[in-house]
């Protein structure tokens, strides 16, 4: 194990660490956690370090456990359309390797530099979730190291498997508070021969929302249906079609006939497609059928809250009920969060603060009401009885 001296500036979300450790194998990580359990040491796992301004600062931090030096494994079973990958591999790197066999892990790299470990720990999915589902839906099996250092697996390498509990789903989006994710098996998809991005915009929320719903319930099988709005500007809808050249052309025509829209078509994504807006980003979820009323609600309740400059930017997988709301540095987050949460709650979902610079998150209720809070806490206590894994960093932890 390569243990470094306390790095001058190593910290998590403003909380300084006493030391940073870089285990190079699952065994080393397990030994480290076993020792840490005996010493009651609080740890935060990091890999790509691309999302350290997410969640809450840890209540206590003794060691940053940096998993980026762990053995790099990519075992691509192309014939089975599955891959085994270690947490330290970066998503972009994995997809570059899979692409050589004409395949992909159909998850967007929403935050550049995202590692597989961070991808699973945050469960962050982008536009492709419309057709392929989110991280949890493509995860087949997982290896984790528990708080007490024991190594455990659930699921497996086959695409169909109901043996035992699906701990992969529990760990997806758990922000390193239940254990360290070291390895995963994913289901893969073929790369399409062609992609076509269809874009159109409307000044009326109702027209844009109606277009999203018509496309989402159409038989054109879109890979993504995104909606965006910059400040008080028009509502832009972008539909991604994937398939053969002939297929994407035919389905584009079909969608124009169905929606009455005149789409601008291109082979490359429009600016900002699939990226998180703002330096602070809220995530809104909603019942997909309520998109129109939600947009109207947001239009009125966010009016005047964007301030000058970049203001507020709305963007996300509107077809399945997700919108990110980005705010520039000049925006006061508290009233924006209040308005967004009220609107999203009325639309059957909710709003959380996904990320924000440290000083701007303080004092905010980042997550809002939590379903089954007693069970959430019981799960945390069961997996991490000493409350040592990223204590306080996640909503239920």
């Amino acid at each position, binding site marked *: 194990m390569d243990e470094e001296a306390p790095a001058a500036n190593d910290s998590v979300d403003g909380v300084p660490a006493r030391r940073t450790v870089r285990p190079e194998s699952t065994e080393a990580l397990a030994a480290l956690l076993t020792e840490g359990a005996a010493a009651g040491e609080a740890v935060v796992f990091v890999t790509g370090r691309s999302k350290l301004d997410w969640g809450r600062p840890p209540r206590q931090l003794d060691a940053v456990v940096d998993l980026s030096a762990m053995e790099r494994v990519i075992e691509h079973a192309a014939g089975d359309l599955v891959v085994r990958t270690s947490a330290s591999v970066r998503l972009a790197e994995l997809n570059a390797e899979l692409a050589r066999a004409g395949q992909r892990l159909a998850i967007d790299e929403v935050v550049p530099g995202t590692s597989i470990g961070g991808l699973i720990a945050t469960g962050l999915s982008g536009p492709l979730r419309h057709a392929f589902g989110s991280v949890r839906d493509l995860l087949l099996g997982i290896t984790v190291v528990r708080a*007490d250092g024991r190594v455990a*697996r659930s699921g497996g*390498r086959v695409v169909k498997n109901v*043996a*035992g509990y699906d701990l992969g789903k529990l760990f997806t989006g758990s922000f390193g508070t239940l254990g360290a994710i070291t390895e995963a098996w994913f289901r893969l998809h073929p790369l399409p021969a062609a992609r076509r991005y269809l874009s159109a915009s409307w000044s009326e929320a109702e027209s844009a929302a109606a277009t999203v719903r018509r496309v989402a319930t159409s038989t054109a099988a879109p890979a993504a249906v995104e909606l965006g709005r910059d400040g008080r500007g028009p509502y832009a809808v972008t539909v991604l079609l994937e*398939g053969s050249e002939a297929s994407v052309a035919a389905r584009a025509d079909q969608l124009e006939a169905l929606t009455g829209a005149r789409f601008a078509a291109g082979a490359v994504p429009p600016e900002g497609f699939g990226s998180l807006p703002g330096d602070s980003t809220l995530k809104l979820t909603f*019942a997909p059928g*309520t998109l129109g009323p939600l947009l109207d609600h947001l239009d009125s309740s966010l009016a005047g809250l964007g301030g000058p400059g970049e203001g507020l930017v709305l963007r996300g997988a509107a077809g399945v009920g997700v919108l990110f709301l980005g705010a520039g540095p000049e925006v006061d987050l508290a009233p924006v969060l209040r308005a967004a949460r009220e609107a999203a709650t009325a639309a059957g979902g*909710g709003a959380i603060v996904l990320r924000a610079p440290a000083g701007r998150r303080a004092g905010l209720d980042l997550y809002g009401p939590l379903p089954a809070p007693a069970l959430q806490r019981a799960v945390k206590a*069961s997996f991490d009885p000493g409350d040592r894994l990223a204590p306080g960093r996640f909503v239920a932890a």
Partner: protein
Amino acid sequence: MSTLGELAARLRAALGDGAVLDDPAELRTYECDGLSHYRAVPGLVAFATSADAVATIVTACAQAAVPFVARGSGTGLSAGALPSTEGVLIVLAKMRGLVELDAEGQRAVVEPGFINLDVSRAAAPYGLFYAPDPSSQQICSIGGNVAENSGGAHCLKHGFTTHHVTGIELVTPSGEQVTLGNGKAPDAPGYDLLGAFVGSEGTIGILTQATLRLLPRPEAVVTLLAGFATTDEAGAAVSAIIASGVLPAAIEMMDALAILAAETAVHPGYPEGCGAVLLVELDGPGIDVAEGLATVEALCLANGASELRTATSEAERALLWKGRKSAFAAVGQLSPDFIVQDGVIPRTKLPEVLRAIDALALAAGIRVANVFHAGDGNLHPLVLFDESVEGDAERAEAVSSAIVDLCIAHGGSITGEHGVGADKVQFMGRMFGEDDLDTMQLLRCAFDPAGLSNPGKIFPTPRLCGEVPGRRGAHPLTVPGAVEVF
């Protein structure tokens, strides 16, 4: 009065006389689910007609420390709803309401006893359907589907139950009514307890309502039937189709014995003299289906298919599916008894595993018919035997068990869709290590520390909750030579 007697009196007072059965003859009706060689007469049967009633029953059980088991339609094939003789069987079949159909938002909200096929029927007028389609979909309930994370022939493309449930309401093992997920919206904050609940086989609570995702019905559907001389050729065709980048909705295979059974029973008119038949169904935009069909036909021919038939109308497609859908029942005409096995292998291993199954069957003097979901490597070998012949049942059981070991040895799973239930408990320690099983049970301890919810299912050794990990001796089943899945 006995504990169960007091419980019966309490439940009658709360829910009415008709809600409780304790007559021994009546109780016997509920002694098994779809896997009928596992039998246990429940201590009591309680019928729930609402979430409140479920909570009342579970609370009473929790307070009396009496185990309980939930049952929907009773069609499960792993004895997952096998009652506890000392406990209460909670029957949810009367909770079969459609709470809401939100066509605009592609959601259906249903009670646990709602029948799977009825979801698609209710959604059909809006051009929508519910994707998971287990073979028993005409009678199985959504509550059971959620418990088992049910799949079906078309889950190759469209996914399993877990991909199609956005929110649930449940009664926890302590009797509390809680919501998991976000209703019709995705991504509830906090841990994905919804994802953990789906497929937990009734061991961490009882579903009282589910919100399901509906998909647009595809523009085009085509079914292709291809006859091959051998399962090797058909298996190679499956691998070639998967590798080509075409993603069919379903790829099903039948071997010679299954074909014979189907021909004898329902005369589907499959190509004569075939050693294997593949059924490939493609759905999606018309142009994609046409392109995919051309690729699949070419790959079948390149891998030795002797005859291809395609069907696009619903009636023609039903004819091609008839043999496949009736295969299990048809095997009943070839043999007085059979075991339905359910295991999974990486799909590229199909030919070698099918040959190994043949060898096992030959060596044991037992016939095995193979009818299965080839596209995702989910085998359903039907192991034939005759109960009246001495030793036959034991030989069949040994072959069936050896097939599961074959799946584990090839990196697969002991169950693809039927669940572990009571039936496969003894295989869990062969697929997973002690630490794996212990870790899964950390989840159970959070929901059900007293271990009252469907005890004896999934796990060979119950974990004592609150126990200090690592201090207890290893269970003999879970240690020596444990085969791990990775």
